[in-house]
């Protein structure tokens, strides 16, 4: 555990970057520092590897004061990932990744073998090993940055806005990849970002900081969304925190209807049997069960469904795996107002109406509130 104890950073000109900060960073979890620029989040991160020394207060790792060991030994025990990756442009990808193992005295062959292993782990093609950074895209460079930080298998990973400079699609991919890696590796990750969505998505614990280096709230993301400590945190979370909070409720509890689902090769009798007053539309799937689109029952002609005239089905959600937010999103996007539930293979498992999703949200919130009461 990294313990930050009454840490203050005051610069000679009087600016206070971090003001009497105390918090415990749990092991094997992702702790995110988030806040507007000038809130001291990067300063805090850099005090952990002593790139910045605190003016007062102590930082300990597993009870040991970090100032009690040689600074470079401390730093080599912590991976560091930075915005724009900060790769060594004059070294090949494999040698970039091998940097810390080489510093630790590994021989070249072993360090390179380890680097290649990590390239695979972070999803980089082995053919990139001998390339130079300029030959890689921003997203690939960031993956190299992560691999380089992991090279010597440090217990701690410090990440300073690592995904801020890549476009949103790539960023989402890198975030998912980080979560997957974390499942495998279980590092103690300290992550700095200004993006509250990123914080809520990847954080096990989120520390919201405000300008002047004050800690506004330190809580798991779900709690942050349901019970912001004050107006600042609430504003920072944004207007749609209610919707975002749905990300923390599983869609598993939704009751799916299977009746309004017909295969494209269904007979007229089957279609007639499926049609009912409650469900104004039927979802047509192909023979493998993949969704094709919605149709009004009386427009369906058995054996000859005109797939080009089907209504779009929006974005299906993976039942049980994705959250109520995805289910609600699916229902809102579908012109029929019904969300399509699929299994991991994309095959339809049922449909659910906006009303039913709304029901589930109300239930989840009620349970969430009672949970919080129990927890509090």
């Amino acid at each position: 555990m990294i313990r930050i104890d009454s840490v203050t950073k005051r610069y000679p000109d009087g600016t206070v970057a971090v003001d009497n900060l105390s918090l415990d960073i749990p092991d094997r979890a992702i702790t995110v520092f988030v806040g507007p620029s000038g809130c001291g989040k990067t300063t805090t991160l850099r005090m952990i590897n002593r790139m910045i020394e605190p003016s007062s207060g102590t930082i300990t790792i597993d009870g040991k004061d970090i100032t009690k060991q040689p600074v470079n030994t401390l730093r080599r025990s912590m991976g560091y990932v930075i915005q724009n990756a900060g790769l060594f442009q004059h070294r090949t990808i494999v040698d970039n990744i091998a940097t810390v193992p080489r510093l630790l005295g590994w021989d070249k062959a072993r360090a390179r073998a380890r680097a290649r292993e990590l390239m695979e782990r972070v999803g980089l093609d082995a053919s990139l090993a001998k390339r130079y950074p300029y030959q890689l895209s921003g997203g690939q460079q960031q993956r190299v940055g992560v691999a380089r930080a992991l090279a010597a298998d440090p217990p701690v990973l410090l990440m300073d806005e690592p995904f801020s400079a890549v476009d949103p699609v790539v960023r989402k991919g890198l975030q998912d990849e980080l979560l997957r890696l974390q499942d495998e590796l279980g590092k103690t990750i300290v992550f700095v970002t200004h993006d509250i969505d990123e914080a809520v998505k990847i954080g096990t614990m989120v520390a919201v900081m405000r300008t002047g280096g004050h800690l506004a709230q330190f809580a798991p993301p779900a709690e942050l969304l349901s019970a912001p400590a004050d107006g600042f945190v609430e504003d920072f979370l944004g207007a749609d925190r209610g919707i975002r909070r749905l990300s923390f409720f599983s869609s598993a509890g939704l009751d799916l209807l299977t009746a309004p689902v017909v295969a494209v090769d269904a007979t007229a009798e089957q279609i007639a049997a499926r049609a009912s007053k409650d469900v104004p539309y039927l979802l047509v799937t192909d023979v493998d069960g993949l969704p094709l689109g919605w149709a009004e029952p009386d427009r369906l002609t058995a054996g000859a469904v005109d797939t080009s005239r089907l209504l779009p089905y929006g974005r299906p959600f993976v039942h049980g795996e994705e959250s109520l937010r995805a289910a609600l999103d699916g229902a809102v996007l579908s012109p029929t107002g019904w969300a399509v539930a699929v299994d991991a293979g994309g095959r339809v498992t049922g449909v659910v109406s906006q009303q039913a999703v709304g029901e589930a949200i109300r239930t989840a919130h009620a349970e969430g509130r009672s949970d919080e009461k129990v927890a509090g």
Partner: protein
Amino acid sequence: MSGGLFDIPSDLQNSYWGLVGLHLREALVPVAVGLVVALPIAQLCVRLRWLYPPVLWVTTVLYAIPSLAFFVVLIDYTGQTETTVMIPLGVYSLVVFVPAIVDGVRSVPQETLDAATAMGLGPVRRYFQVQLPIAAPAIIAGLRIATVSSISLVSVGMLIGNQGALGNLLHDGQIYNQSRLIWLSVIGTAVLAVVADALLVLVRILVTPWMPRGGRAPRPVDEPEPLTAALEDATR
């Protein structure tokens, strides 16, 4: 042997190729020494920002001193020797090297330095393993200018008594009224400069395989491509 294209008057006590060798030595030794001296000066200027403007000023003023003035002062100490010619050349090279190295080292992106520091590279390792290699193209660019100008400047050494290597031929060409000697001097110097410059370009290419070059494939764009992006936008 008389009448040969490369025959040299006996007062120079050297063959043409001997003069070429001498010319190279007188031109390149000061450049090498200048580079070695400039490295620590430049590093000081990078570390202590306030030092850079005065250092730049001093090197520029030194550059403005005519070589003849240098010779007059130096002759009392080093006599009519090669050293007297080489000292001003070495001093002149500083005006090129110091800014080239400072700019090169400063061109290393802050995040690269931060990453190096965070990975536990101390100041010495950071300098030799990160800053200097990344500054290499700028340093070699400075080296090219310093080398070419040094090769052309050596000729003035003839003023202090036949210490100008190929430049001595200019003088002999005049007193013996032989334009052949003048051509040998001028073309020889030019060829040396061009060849030395070409070699340095080659060195640059060899030591910086990491630099983007014209004609290579452009930097790849991140997958996933437009289709995925459009899907993401559509469902956002």
